[in-house]
């Protein structure tokens, strides 16, 4: 087997692996096929262009893109700190920032309420000092999505930074570049693939966010009712609409993930 490891197309894969891989693939494809089969194609366009659907889609795009922008601004420095700065408690802090990936999102929503809610650690002060009230607002929905999605960006960028050849930075510094210049002109361009991959994953996760959003920001059309929330509520009254809306979410995510894969997510 060892000598054939360079062979392309992997004809030498163990049969058991092929079978298991097949089961794994079916496991992912079948639910999507189910959605497609159940899609009411005739009324699909009408359901899609209903004011409710357009409002939810628009809000979802605005909120998920805003969440991604915030995640890039805050997450890149965080990833850089984790990759480059040794400080006591780094492992713990790193674990805490990745926690939202495994935390049930509803728990994340409750945690956000205890921090940014009206009676929360920071929320009470925010409201008194600035009149800022996050729950039940679009800003609150963005906050919830950022909380759940940013870890995807942080770990991707951190991995990129760790895998980087440090000699480029050293060379730049030896040539007299200042710290900010090195970061801006050398480090960031070198981790660009990881940064883009991380941002895309983060955006896709934000787009699908449900639990933290409905718990922290509530559900109101045009303000906090993003696509996943609209799907959930439509499922109770209008399953056809729910399926069509799900399909749109799926299609948008799939197009972006496939489109970016070859350019940035694939092996170099």
């Amino acid at each position: 087997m060892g000598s054939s490891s360079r062979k392309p197309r992997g004809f030498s894969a163990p049969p058991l692996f092929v079978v298991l891989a097949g089961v794994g693939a079916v496991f992912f494809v079948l639910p999507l096929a189910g959605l497609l089969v159940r899609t009411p194609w005739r009324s699909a366009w009408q359901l899609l262009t209903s004011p409710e659907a357009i409002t939810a889609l628009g809000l979802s795009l605005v909120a998920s893109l805003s969440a991604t922008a915030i995640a890039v601004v805050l997450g890149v420095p965080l990833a850089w700190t984790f990759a480059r700065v040794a400080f006591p408690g780094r492992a713990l802090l790193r674990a805490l920032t990745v926690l939202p990936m495994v935390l049930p999102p509803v728990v994340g929503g409750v945690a956000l309420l205890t921090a940014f809610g009206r009676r929360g650690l920071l929320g009470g002060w925010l409201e008194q000092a600035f009149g800022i009230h996050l729950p039940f607002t679009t800003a609150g929905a963005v906050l919830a999505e950022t909380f759940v999605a940013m870890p995807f960006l942080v770990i991707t960028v951190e991995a990129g930074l760790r895998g980087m050849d440090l000699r480029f930075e050293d060379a730049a510094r030896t040539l007299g570049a200042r710290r900010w210049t090195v970061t801006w002109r050398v480090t960031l361009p070198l981790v660009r693939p990881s940064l883009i991959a991380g941002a895309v994953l983060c955006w896709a996760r934000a787009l699908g966010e449900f639990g933290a959003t409905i718990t922290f920001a509530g559900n109101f059309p045009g303000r906090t009712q993003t696509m996943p929330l609209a799907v959930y509520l439509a499922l109770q009254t209008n399953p056809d609409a729910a399926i069509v809306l799900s399909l749109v979410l799926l299609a948008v995510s799939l197009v972006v993930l496939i489109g970016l894969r070859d350019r940035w997510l694939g092996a170099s």
Partner: protein
Amino acid sequence: MKVRILSAFVAAALLLAGCGGTSQTAGPSAGALSGSITVFAASSLTAAFGTIGGDFQKAYPGTTVDFSFAGSSTLVAQIQQGAIGDIFASADQPNMQKLVNAGLTSGSPSIFARNKLQIVVPAGNPKHVSGLADLGRSGLIVVLCAPSVPCGRYAAQALQKANVMVKPASEESDVKAVLTKVALGEADAGIVYVTDVKAAGAQVKGIDIPDALNVIADYPIVVLKDSQNIALARAFIGYLHANGLKTLARYGFLLA
């Protein structure tokens, strides 16, 4: 590597979570009744049915009653999508009617309890809400159930009778979510069932809605067509009508 372990962990957790279906435990039985049933019940029944289920299991050793609580419309959607269970208890007639019309029930539903609405405010009533008319005040953060959920439809009816226009901050997917937002102090007021206010205890305060403006909600219950244990399902409903009413009253329900 860490990421890979993490994602394996997530996958395992998801798999486990998906496996919590109904299990027909055929335990040794003292009487004719044995096995287990799953009851799909409206969120507002959570506390009362929990108690009645425990009492039933004590009265019929060897039987197990599992509950799945959610908004009535969510439960109807789940049953229509093929969720396996034995009994459905709804917080309103229209949701029950949907299942009856879809031919998913066995026998006709019976009404076992009634409920009515109450305004709920955080303990201490910081915004001095005294009635439905106050809910229209600007600056007051009001949270209601979504119009598709029974409590949302009832709330809309009551507000219409009182001729009050409310701009809710959020339309929650079930009654417990409204209660949580008020109990946490995020919302200044909400409209829920009397029984929810009672169950929430000291965290919240209930403000009565006069009967002329209030809405009475009927709670129907029925055996599902695909029940795997019709005998036990019928026995539970019989027990509910005979012995469960006292418990329901204790939790604030009006008797049918």
